[in-house]
């Protein structure tokens, strides 16, 4: 065993280079992505035309959901599932929360946000406070409506079920994530309360329930386009356009790689990308 590990150490003797061995392909992939996105952002900044994002029904429905709650005089419940500050899905959910909070402030409708993560809780409270301020209704913001429950999944579920039963929200928004089993319970409970439900997540295992149980559902990557779509900000839209260009590239790489795999036994493209 000792001898073996010695041999292994020998084999790994430093090979000087720019990149950590095995990371060059990954770095180039990220670099191209970053350049594409950066170029698109710069075009947007310079005021040049940027392609538009096609209509996303699920995001249009957020306004409808808040409107319904206003008509019925009942609150809106917003959940991000079991978020974590470093999770991209959570980050994608922040602007949507801000948008919903602003809409709620304008319509004078209560927004209840439940959070199972302490760090995200801190951020959400800030976002909602700010949204009420921007809507000119800072007095309407009630810090008790942003509720930290606990970071334990089913303690969170238990707490939210209690809130849903007591507050009977007319609209429920499940956006971002990551979502786990709690999503289905919330959707079922929301349906039981007769709430209009808008969902969106990239947590694949929960997607069937979003598609089957919510009135509107965003699938996978669509949630990452949300902040650009909502703000209509050309710079953010630029990042989405950059992504789309990258997908073309992806297309080309897959087709090229498939051709190589079909006509040659040695797939140099795969080897290069993994280098």
């Amino acid at each position, binding site marked *: 065993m000792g001898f073996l590990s010695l041999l292994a150490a020998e084999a790994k003797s430093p090979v000087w280079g720019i990149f950590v061995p*095995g*990371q060059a*392909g*990954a*770095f180039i*992939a*990220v670099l191209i992505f970053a350049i594409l996105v950066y170029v698109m952002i710069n075009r947007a900044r310079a005021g040049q035309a940027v*392609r*538009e*994002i*096609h209509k996303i029904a699920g995001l249009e429905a957020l306004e409808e959901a808040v409107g319904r709650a206003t008509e019925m005089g009942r609150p809106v419940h917003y959940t991000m599932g079991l978020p974590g*500050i*470093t*999770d*991209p899905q959570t*980050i994608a959910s922040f602007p949507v929360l801000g948008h919903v909070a602003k809409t709620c402030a304008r319509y004078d409708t209560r927004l209840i946000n439940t959070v199972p993560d302490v*760090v995200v809780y*801190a*951020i959400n409270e800030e976002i909602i406070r700010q949204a009420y301020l921007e809507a000119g209704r800072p007095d309407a913001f009630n810090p008790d409506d942003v509720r930290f*429950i*606990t*970071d*334990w999944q*089913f*303690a969170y579920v*238990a*707490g939210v*079920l*209690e809130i849903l*039963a007591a507050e009977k929200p007319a609209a429920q928004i499940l956006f971002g994530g990551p979502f786990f089993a709690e999503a289905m319970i919330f959707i079922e409970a929301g349906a039981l309360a007769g709430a209009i439900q808008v969902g969106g997540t990239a947590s*694949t*295992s929960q*997607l*069937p*329930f979003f*598609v089957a149980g919510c009135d509107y559902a965003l*699938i996978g*990557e*669509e949630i990452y*386009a949300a902040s650009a779509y909502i703000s209509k900000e050309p710079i953010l839209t630029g990042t*989405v*356009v950059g*992504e*789309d260009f990258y*997908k073309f590239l*992806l*297309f080309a*790489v*897959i*087709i090229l*790689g*498939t051709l*190589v*795999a*079909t006509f040659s036994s040695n*797939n140099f*493209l*795969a080897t290069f*990308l*993994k280098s």
Partner: protein
Amino acid sequence: MDWGILAGAICTIAVWTYLADHQNPIWELIQHIYIGLAYGWSIGYYWHTYIWPTFTGNKDSLAAGQWVYIIPIIAGLLVYTRYIPSIAWVARYPLSLALGWGAGYVLGFTPAVFIGQLTNSFYDLWTDSVSGTINNWILLLTLLGTVMYFFFTIRRDANPVMKGGVWLGRWAIMVALGAAFGNTVLYRYNLFYARMHYILGDWLHLAGG
């Protein structure tokens, strides 16, 4: 009499009362006990397995001479300033650091996984077996269709290729979500089976086989 199993059985049945009425006092009680215990447990757990050793452990701790840990400890504690309204903004410092760090992790580590998925999508479209060839064609076309479904800036009815790709992609996504749903149903029943086995087997000793 195993008092532990009895206590567990009572808790199990207490939770099931939720099915009869979702606002009954038994459920309310068990749920608050449970939330309290859950958090109480994690206090003790963090304390003994991380926090205390960071200060007094015999390796890699303050007591072992790693005084530099004072910096992250203070940085971490800054997050509690959010409970003091006048200086609540200070809590943004550690949070911003955490956010940037997380973004760095995403760009630093996931691309390698992404590349692994990509290079496995180079299908051999002419294999030795007929079934293998057909499967690879299906794999390739449904993959391309699914990627097309997520183009945001091209209208889905822009041209026939786009139309066909999105059509195929949507079917493939529905098949995948159906498979996920079927599996999820079984998963939920497996967990319920485990609870029923606890009541009928461990507690009442009725399990056969």
